[in-house]
């Protein structure tokens, strides 16, 4: 393939001024949750960056993540960056269809070092037949795509942790990208998880921008999430936190506390245990986030959030602690009854073997 132009070259070719580039870099820094002083570093990095190839694979998902991204309010910074990257395959978005689309994917995979974006989990039961594209199972497609990939970004909770498809009873055997790698079902590559159901669009683009700008994986937490967006809990950054600290809780969704915007902890808010940027980045062009609208966080960027108990049960109340109760009771009864038979047999044997004690038995 011919040498891809650097981003700076491309911008210059489009007649974009250095001032505009500076503005772009400042906005990009903000987007990537970097301090404004990083703008020159971004400018320098972008000056050297060549257009990388990107393949976007949509698997067992609801298209919410793509919707989130494409409906995002800022078709500027991100789109600029996307303009810079070559989105060679996006099953949902691309104009090409059928054989032509699959051809595009295969072409893109010829040159190693591309970035793979995945949204949706991957079904594994029954050979993965529960989700196929053009007759190819998701599992096979991911395996092929990862062969020569530089890294993979799991967009959305489904791709990152299995999400709703993996929720109990998980009929399709859905798994996350990371889980497939851990099980050796697909080639191991660096993974960036961008969970959320859906993820905040600027977080998606921010993570991509970071990778594309600096060409490296950002710092990740233990769940593979970039700490720049997922480093703090919703609770830590929540504007209602002072109410929590003072023990001022809304008890129902229509009581005095709810109207006054008190903490939603007791109404099941999962903010204390959820890591995401909602409280700072917010949604809908920075308008608000769920807690600001009066609803607790449901913890959608955490693994297994769907199975972690009711969204409306306080964190201090347990999820579903009696699922083992019946089997434990039965097992306990089984051991107990077993022991009682063994004990009765032993005692019975001692009794039937009883030799009547005589005076002789009192001394050795």
């Amino acid at each position, binding site marked *: 393939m011919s040498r891809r132009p650097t981003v700076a070259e491309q911008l210059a070719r489009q007649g974009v001024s250095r001032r505009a580039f500076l503005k772009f870099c400042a906005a990009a820094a903000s987007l990537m949750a970097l301090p404004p002083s990083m703008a020159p570093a971004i400018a320098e990095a972008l000056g050297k960056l060549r257009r990388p190839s990107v393949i976007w694979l949509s698997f067992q998902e609801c298209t919410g993540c793509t919707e989130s991204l494409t409906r995002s309010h800022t078709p500027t910074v991100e789109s600029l960056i996307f303009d810079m990257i070559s989105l060679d395959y996006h099953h949902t978005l691309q104009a090409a269809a059928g054989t032509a689309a699959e051809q595009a994917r295969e072409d893109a995979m010829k040159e190693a070092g591309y970035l793979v974006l995945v949204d949706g989990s991957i079904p594994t039961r029954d050979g993965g037949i529960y989700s196929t594209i053009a007759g190819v199972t998701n599992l096979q497609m991911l395996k092929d795509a990862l062969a020569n990939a530089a890294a993979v970004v799991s967009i959305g909770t489904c791709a990152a942790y299995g999400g709703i498809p993996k929720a109990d009873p998980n009929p399709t055997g859905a798994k996350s990208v990371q889980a497939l790698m851990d099980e050796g079902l697909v080639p191991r590559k660096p993974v960036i998880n961008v969970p959320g159901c859906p993820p905040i669009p600027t977080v998606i683009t921010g993570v991509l921008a970071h990778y594309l700008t600096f060409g490296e994986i950002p710092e990740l937490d233990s769940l593979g999430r970039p700490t720049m967006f997922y480093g703090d809990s919703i609770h830590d950054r929540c504007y209602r936190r002072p109410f929590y600290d003072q023990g001022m809780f809304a008890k129902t969704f229509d009581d005095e506390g709810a109207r006054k915007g008190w903490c939603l902890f007791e109404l099941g808010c999962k903010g204390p245990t959820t890591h995401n940027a909602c409280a700072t980045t917010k949604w809908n062009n920075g308008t608000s986030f769920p807690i600001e609208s009066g609803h607790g966080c449901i913890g959608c960027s955490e693994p297994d959030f769907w199975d972690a108990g009711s969204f409306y049960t306080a964190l201090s109340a347990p999820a579903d602690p009696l699922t083992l109760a019946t089997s434990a009771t039965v097992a306990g009864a089984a*051991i107990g009854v077993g022991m009682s038979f063994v004990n009765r047999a032993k005692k019975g044997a001692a009794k039937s073997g009883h030799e009547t004690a005589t005076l002789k038995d009192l001394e050795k």
Partner: protein
Amino acid sequence: MNEVELLNWVRGPGLNIAIGIFLLGTIWRLFEIYSLGRKKDLSAPRHTAGASGWNTIARRSLAPPGMLKRSPISYIGGYVFHVGLAIVVFLFAPHIELIENLFGLSWPALPSQVVDLATVVTLAAMVLVLVDRINKPVKRYLSTVEDYFTWAVTFLPVLTGYMAVKHLLLPYTTMLALHILSVEILLVVLPFTKLFHVFTLFMSRWYNGQANAHKGVPV
């Protein structure tokens, strides 16, 4: 594992496992103990008012004459910490919420200030009985590792619960997780240690009361 994962684990799978082991152990142990049976008493009974197994179950909660003076710390400390535990466990609003969540049963809670006080008093009483166990020759003589271990697993849930509520030392999430974890440890070890007396003491009192009631002695 971060504190959130810990919390999610303790209130999810952890609690499930703990309650499972607790139920399994309790039922197993109850069968094991009470299936040993006992012989019927063939002697002619004597009937006396106030002598029965049920009477003894109630009566043994009170100190017999002279005993309070002989071992005041055992009785006063014992009463305070048992009653305190009952208050803290069953009359603290979040615990009632939890019980309602599990079984659909609910009752009025005590104001949290009262529960706070009960917690502090309970902790103090528990420390007192521990000191007594170490200081008093008989108790020290009888004590095994198990006695100190069971003291600790009873003490920790109260302590961590108090620290979580009061936001002491560690962040709420971490403390809450540790609190639930300590309760789980308590649940897991209860059927297999002397803590099992919470169940067996009623039958023990009944056996003793019933056998002596047969002789017409209200014990």
